[in-house]
């Protein structure tokens, strides 16, 4: 019987166990305490990982005892730390003491004890992240903006008594950057970041750590937008724009200054002045009109049809500045044809083709009756330069007998180019004396360098084709360009003209009062330099006609050629200073009156000065 009971009991137990096993129930697996942490050295929490629960509800209990104590305590708080945790409050937490902790898992089937862990709160300190992170962009005046990061320590940490010591660290990066920029902040609760990229959006994080322990996790990212440095960029940009434009302006001004003359002449071609081929200023200075005239190759007067060619020769009187013109010219005498380089293209008018070697060779040997071509050995009268000796003579002499060089300007002679505005009149007065020979009178010592530009003329011949040259050619007819400052023999007193360049000797113009029958010029008394000045503005206004001077007689009588078939008009002798008569246009008109109406194209208005193209007269006569 007993045996039966015993065996039945055993059988039942076995059956029970088998049933349990078949159900998959077992005692719980071994739990494991995997982490203990203290955020403030005043409390701490441990967490365990449960093992297999064995299919049955399992209870966990934590038991601990301290180093040096034998009393075993149970976890005071399973809740605060979450599931499977044990929280040790202040009264249960001791520093510098080892805790021996175990967790017991229990279910119906049994219980399982975890391994013991030995915990010293001293070494498990890990704070919470910092709180209240504030990020601002501060922009002090005159300084670059910086980032101001401010935070507060996590709660429940006692810093005041010194029980806990916190150290901080911040991290920031531009939004799209990969690497974080780390800055250790020590124990302070704010930080300045100075190196910023303006216009970027930055992310900022802060974390903290006890003096001895683990770093906290990072605070949430705080983003902030750095304003772009607009004012700085603006200022820089505008400064650079201003500098650039100033530089450009300077370059333009410099270029204009350098090439001002050439540009000005481009825009405003100078009025050509008269050019007389073969005119020797030197002779004129000496007062040897005879020689001068002979030098010019003029043997007879009035001009014959050959003079037609001479008409193209222009006495170019330039009383403009051009000291260097003078010098250049003087240099060039020996080397004819050397191109003068000077800044005032105005002074050339109907450049003397005689001086141009090419022209000389080509054209000077050919008599060209076409009036359209004008050889214009330019005589540029310069008021100032008495020394401008100029070897006009040889050239002209060589050309004596030959038709003067003609400027192959095409159909230019027949129609005188419209006179250009006489802006350059003051500067360069040209005498356009078609008849070189007629240009007899020349004030002694006149600095007018009629032929200074002999060399230049050669060059200018090339320029004759230019319209402005023709304008100058027209201008050349102006007898006024003869500078008459000294009284001396020929009272080629011309209205004084002051050149803007302050040439030493302005051109004097003398008004011709009347022309006697025999061609004598009676000049109005010249009232002196000063008085001439008011005349000066008047001069351009007056339309004056100038007649050619055929020669100067012994007693300083100008022999004019108002018109070709009038007789020589001798100018009355007047002291240069007394009566600076100018070539009165009346005389010319008188002479012209006999003419048929002058071709309109012969009469040029040049800044108020009317020029007659003697060539026109010549033609009409022929």
């Amino acid at each position: 019987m007993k045996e039966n009971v015993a065996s039945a009991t055993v059988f039942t137990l076995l059956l029970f166990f088998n049933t349990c096993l078949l159900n998959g129930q077992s005692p719980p697996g071994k739990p494991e305490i995997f982490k203990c942490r203290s955020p403030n050295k005043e409390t701490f929490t441990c967490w365990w990982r449960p093992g297999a629960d064995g299919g049955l509800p399992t209870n966990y209990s934590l038991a601990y005892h301290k180093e040096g104590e034998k009393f075993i305590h149970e976890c005071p708080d399973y809740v605060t730390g979450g599931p499977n945790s044990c929280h040790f409050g202040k009264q249960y937490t001791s520093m510098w003491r080892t805790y021996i902790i175990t967790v017991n898992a229990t279910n119906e089937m049994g219980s399982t004890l975890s391994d013991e862990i030995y915990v010293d709160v001293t070494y498990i300190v890990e704070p919470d992240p910092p709180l209240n992170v504030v990020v601002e962009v501060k922009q002090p005046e005159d300084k670059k903006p910086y980032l101001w990061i401010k935070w507060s320590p996590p709660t429940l940490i006692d810093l005041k008594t010194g029980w806990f010591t916190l150290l901080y660290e911040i991290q920031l990066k531009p939004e799209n950057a990969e690497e974080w920029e780390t800055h250790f902040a020590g124990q302070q609760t704010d930080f300045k970041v100075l190196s910023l990229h303006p216009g970027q959006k930055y992310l900022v994080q802060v974390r903290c750590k006890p003096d001895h322990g683990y770093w906290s996790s990072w605070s949430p990212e705080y983003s902030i937008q750095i304003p772009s440095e607009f004012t700085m960029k603006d200022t820089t940009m505008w400064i650079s724009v201003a500098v650039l434009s100033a530089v450009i302006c300077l370059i333009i001004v410099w270029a204009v200054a350098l090439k001002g003359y050439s540009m000005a002449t481009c825009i405003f071609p100078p009025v050509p002045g008269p050019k007389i081929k073969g005119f020797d200023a030197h002779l004129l200075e000496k007062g040897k009109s005879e020689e001068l005239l002979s030098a010019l190759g003029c043997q007879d007067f009035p001009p014959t049809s050959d003079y037609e060619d001479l008409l193209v020769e222009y006495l170019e009187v330039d009383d403009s500045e051009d000291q260097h013109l003078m010098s250049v010219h003087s240099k060039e005498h020996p080397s004819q044809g050397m191109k003068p380089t000077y800044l005032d293209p105005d002074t050339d008018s109907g450049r003397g083709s005689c001086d141009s070697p090419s022209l000389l060779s080509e054209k000077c040997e050919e008599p060209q009756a076409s009036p359209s071509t004008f050889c214009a050995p330019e005589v540029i009268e310069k008021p100032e330069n008495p020394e401008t000796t100029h070897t006009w003579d040889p050239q002209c002499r060589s050309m004596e007998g030959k038709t003067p060089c003609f400027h192959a300007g095409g159909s230019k002679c027949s129609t005188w180019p419209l006179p250009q505005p006489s802006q350059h009149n003051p500067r360069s007065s040209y005498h356009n004396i078609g008849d070189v020979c007629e240009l007899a009178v020349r004030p002694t010592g006149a600095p007018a360098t009629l032929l200074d530009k002999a060399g230049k003329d050669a060059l200018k011949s090339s320029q004759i084709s230019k319209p402005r040259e023709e304008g100058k050619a027209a201008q050349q007819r102006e007898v006024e360009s003869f500078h008459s400052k000294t009284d001396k023999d020929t009272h080629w007193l011309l209205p004084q003209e002051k050149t803007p360049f302050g040439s030493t000797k302005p051109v004097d113009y003398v008004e011709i009062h009347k022309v006697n029958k025999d061609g004598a010029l009676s000049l109005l008394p010249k009232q002196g330099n000063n008085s001439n000045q008011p005349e000066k503005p008047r001069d351009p206004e007056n339309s004056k006609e100038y007649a050619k001077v055929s020669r100067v007689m012994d007693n300083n009588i100008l022999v004019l050629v108002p018109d070709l078939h009038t007789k020589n008009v001798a100018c009355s002798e007047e002291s240069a200073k007394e009566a600076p008569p100018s070539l009165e246009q009346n005389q010319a008109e008188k002479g012209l009156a006999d003419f048929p109406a002058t071709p309109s194209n012969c009469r040029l208005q040049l800044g108020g000065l009317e020029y007659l193209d003697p060539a026109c007269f010549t033609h009409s006569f022929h």
Partner: protein
Amino acid sequence: SLLLLLVSNLLLWQSVTPLPVCPGGAVRCQVTLRDLFDRAVVLSHYIHNLSSEMFSEFDKRYTQGRGFISKALNSCHTSSLATPEDKEQAQQISQKDFLSLIVSILRSWNEPLYHLVTEVRGMQEAPEAILSKAIEIEEQSKRLLEGMELILSQVHPETRENAVYSVWSGLPSLQMADEESRLFAYYNLLHCLRRDSHKIDNYLKLLKCRIVHDNNC
């Protein structure tokens, strides 16, 4: 002449008493006390860092996995000193007692540190890192002790030289023939050193805030 020499030496000896840091008034001394505490805290912090590193390196190299921690319980020679174990207890100790306590702990470690250096140096294949740290800790501890005695004399000049300290008798253990026993002896020593250096550091930071900043760090 010899007698004169002897007397002069004695006089010199007596004159070697630490001059008071603040000959002047208390106000000036506050500033100086702050400097002393700052320096003390720096030293204590440094010493603990060294101790912690030394322990970690030793454990990793020699005793990892042996479970010595379970045996090194309640085995520090300074456990007899009544040291506070939490903030509340620490705040209940008087300033004077606190300072004396710190000095006692430091004094208690003079001898163990000395022997530690000696023994590690005499080891076969002396671990250089551990040895250098031991030497450094010993030296800095001496300086910290001097500083603390200075602070004590300043804050509590009436305190006599405190002779209380714990005697260390672990030298024979360091010299045991059994490797495991010897290793445990070292382990225990370094473990206790790490703990006590942390104590000192924490206590000094507490005192600094209490004395210098009036509990308003």
